[in-house]
């Protein structure tokens, strides 16, 4: 379906990475699919550092970002890490689900130093605690901010305080 397939180098290394991960992680690799030029691997939250360490050893040295996704209907958060291999030009996304009522996931700043700020951001926006992170403080938000703005139940006030002017007049 995707009109642009990833380059040949990326393709082979994605399959390689997938098989490597399968061997090394075993059952812990819950799911691995290739989608739009990236490998999406799903692991349990406690295997997150291990998976990323493996990926780093496999050449995925560029830590792109980490973010959270809120799925209130399924009562879970997704923690998504994205890494890139400058040698093979391949991208891997690592996902882990954490329960919404106790979102805890181990930190990866020992693997990728750059995860520091991204995890802090995810923590303050979603309330996902990165266990072992030494500086889990507000990064972008002010200290007095309460609540976790990126959760789906946090209302964007700009859209509430003022009536929508696009409402068609009646009469």
């Amino acid at each position, binding site marked *: 379906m995707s009109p642009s*397939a990833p380059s040949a180098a990326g393709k082979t290394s994605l399959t390689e990475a997938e098989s490597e991960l399968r061997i090394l992680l075993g059952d812990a690799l819950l799911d691995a699919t290739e989608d739009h030029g990236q490998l999406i691997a799903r692991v349990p939250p406690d295997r997150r550092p291990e998976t990323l360490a493996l990926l780093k050893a496999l050449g995925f040295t560029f830590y792109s970002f980490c973010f959270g996704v809120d799925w209130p209907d399924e009562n879970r958060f997704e923690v998504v890490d994205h890494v890139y291999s400058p040698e093979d030009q391949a991208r891997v996304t690592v996902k882990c689900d954490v329960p919404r009522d106790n979102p805890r996931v181990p930190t990866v700043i020992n693997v990728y130093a750059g995860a520091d700020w991204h995890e802090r951001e995810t923590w303050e926006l979603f309330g996902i605690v990165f266990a072992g992170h030494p500086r889990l403080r507000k990064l972008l938000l002010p200290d007095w901010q309460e609540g976790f703005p990126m959760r789906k139940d946090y209302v964007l006030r700009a859209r509430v305080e003022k009536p929508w002017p696009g409402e068609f007049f009646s009469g």
Partner: protein
Amino acid sequence: MATDLETKGYITAITERDMATGDMVLNIGPQHPSTHGVLRVVARLDGEQVISAEPVLGYMHRAFEKLAEQRSPMQNTALFNRLDWVSGFCNEVPYCIACEKLAGIEVPKRAQVQRVILFELTRLASHAMFCGIYGLELGALTPPMYGYRDREYALDLLEMCTGQRMHTNWARIGGVKEDFPEGFYERIPPILEYYRTRIEQWLEFLIDNDIFVKRTRGIGVLPVDVALDYGVSGPNLRASGIAVDARKEEEYLGYMDYEFEVPVGNRGDCFDRYVQRVREMWESCNIIEQALDDLPPGAINTGVGRTFKVPAGEIYIRADGPRGENGYYLISTGAKEPYRLKIRTGSFSNVSVLPYLLKDTYLPDIVAILGSLDFVVGDIDR
């Protein structure tokens, strides 16, 4: 101690620690001439020497990811111009590509090429400004004016085509808004020629200048592995000596069709980062020339209307903007608005390496290093 830090604000904690040690904590920013907006750097100084420094962000956080969840693609492109206002067009394109790829829309070739032309013009404008502004960081008062002047030529072209200098909002899902206006082609080659002479001038003006070299050579050295670890991207990463460039690696906008080099540096210091950008301007000129040559006739838009819904799915699209890897991780559930949109901006990751770079430097080097990363605060805070 750890619990202390968790409960107290960050700055309070640092100040308390400092009361004990007696080092001086210098707050550079958020209102300071050299932080390009409202970045704040808390530096612990021992005389002129920086023991450690920590950027403090968030003074410009506008919750773009939250805003994007309430907006249709058309509204989002207008929003993303404001991420990094120095290179507005470069921010809206990757988002459009993400939506197009999810929907399986084939963008007409003419639109692709036009996007490339505008993209590279924006890069020229952005780098031209950097080349000037960096002089100001080092205390030379004339270069920024040259930078602003030079940038204006590329922005003139953008204005002629899109109607605005910076917040272009020109890319649409499935193409661009309109074709170029009459007389647009004729105006490009002289301006490219101008930029080439400018590049020569920057070489004379700053790169040949001994004081400039003294201030930048060997300052803020960023090794490749650290840069990759922190996700530093774009010219900053390439200056460290590794040719990572999304234009060569990803298939977007048909960049594969153009012949251009990806210049890299070899030391990764401030000087290399400066030369890197000067050199990339040259390559941008080449790309625009090639794009002009093979601009095919035809439609420029597939005519996706305002009710366009992004099909369900998830995708990550990255593009090589002037500030580094600019990517959008789009998770859609089939609505007009994205379910979740992660905006990966170059500046955020680039600035996250500052604590590493600023360690054990001198106070003036803070400014030199900050400037050489070429960040825009809107791009950091989003």
